[in-house]
């Protein structure tokens, strides 16, 4: 299906770094990633709170880690993506307000987010879910944490990462959305399959 085109990215990310990246490409990221999930999105977009860290040119990770604290320093025990689609109602405005360039998450996002990627030049990537242990070895350092009062999974964790990936591009900066291809495939077949099963059930 895809050509397995691999890119390396480093934060801060400029528009020129991502314009030639297309859906289905694979990325590996060096630099700064900030976790931001449900509550952070709601607080920034719906309640107008200022994000406590400037995300312009950075990457956000839809993720809630397991952390440990030693001698006043935080360590990531396990970290991986959470379902990105939950952030769909907020992501357009979140990208618009923060200037974030790369979104890392689980699964796919919708066409409002795709429009934001086209309007403000950003990309959305899928990171294989359930890979929390291996990913902890790509985290070099916890640079800080904000809004810890939201609870460990919901806080903004600022992470220095090395070769974070494979990140598979699901929305590119032209607004192409891989989810639409999947949904087309599903919708073309679904009704026919259901009918086939109905007739099989009659003869179970």
């Amino acid at each position: 299906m895809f050509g397995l085109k691999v890119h390396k990215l480093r934060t801060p990310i400029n528009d020129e770094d991502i314009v030639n990246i297309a859906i289905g490409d694979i990325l590996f990221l060096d630099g700064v990633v900030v976790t931001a999930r449900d509550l952070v999105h709601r607080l920034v977009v719906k309640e107008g709170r200022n994000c406590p860290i400037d995300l312009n040119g950075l990457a956000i990770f839809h993720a809630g880690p397991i952390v440990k604290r030693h001698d006043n320093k935080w360590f990531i025990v396990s970290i991986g993506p959470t379902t990105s689609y939950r952030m769909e109602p907020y992501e357009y405005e979140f990208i618009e307000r923060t200037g974030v360039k790369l979104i890392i998450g689980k699964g796919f996002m919708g066409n409002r987010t795709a429009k934001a990627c086209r309007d403000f030049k950003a990309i959305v990537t899928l990171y294989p879910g359930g890979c929390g242990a291996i990913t902890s070895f790509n985290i070099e350092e916890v640079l800080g944490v904000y809004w810890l009062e939201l609870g460990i999974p919901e806080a903004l964790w600022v992470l220095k990462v090395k070769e974070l990936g494979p990140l598979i591009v699901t929305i590119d900066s032209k607004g192409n959305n891989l989810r639409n291809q999947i949904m087309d495939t599903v919708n073309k077949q679904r009704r026919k399959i259901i009918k086939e099963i109905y007739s099989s059930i009659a003869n179970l």
Partner: protein
Amino acid sequence: MTFINLLNIMKEFIKVVVTSLPNDVVNALRSVCESEEGITKHVCNYMLKNVYLASRTQKPLCQDTGTLMFFIKAGSKAPYLNVLKKVIVKAVKELTKEGLLRPNSIDPFTNVNTGDNTGKYIPWIEWDIADDSDITEVTLYVAGGGSSLPARALVVRPTDGLNELVKLVFDIVPTYGINACPPLIIGIGIGATLEIAATLSKRALLKPVGARNPNPKVAKLETLLLSKLNGIGIGPQGLFGKTFVLDVHIEYSYRHPATYAIALSLSCWALRRGILTLYPEGRAYVSSHGVWLEGT
């Protein structure tokens, strides 16, 4: 067996469950890796590498260590039943503090996280009794958020029961399922009432991958749904490939003349399920993973 001994066994058991996968799931993933091509093969190999590293480094293989759900079959003559619940709660609290479990227990009205994975009815424990037995079996299922999100249950007209079930499966699994970490395991429950169907759909996920329902008609439906779901071509992580679903299991109770309740539970590929057998004299065996626990 002392309280501390049992507590240590329970902690070791939970640790095994969140840092490794049961043998049947690992083997299913290995064959998926072999059959996929291109990007999905790459992704599946990465998942397997994570399973290996998690086990080697004793780290949770997924950061979402879920809502802990215990299904206990208590031997009617087994010792330590009076402390088992206390042991489970204490083990969960301690492992959260030790950074092995992510704090996932939140008050639904205030949205405050208790920070220790306990709260009203949490961890969830379901009890059953094994007659005339001195052996207790504790099954742990870790319900991650991503794959719990698309679950559904409803009661339909009995004349349309099975057809409605098929419709529900194909409305939910190929659409919402793409975000629930495929290849998925699908649990289907059928019963007289909503909560009977719902709990049976969760118990369906506890069956080994590849096991078929003893009722041949039900087994045939399981196989049919599996092949049709995979036939769409959605593939691992929704990136187009051969295997979108690892298995489909159906559990059912007899129904009421006027009702046909159906429920759908999903598990991500990282199906963290463990079965601990506690013998009266203190031996403890995790049969799902093939590991003896010492509790020392």
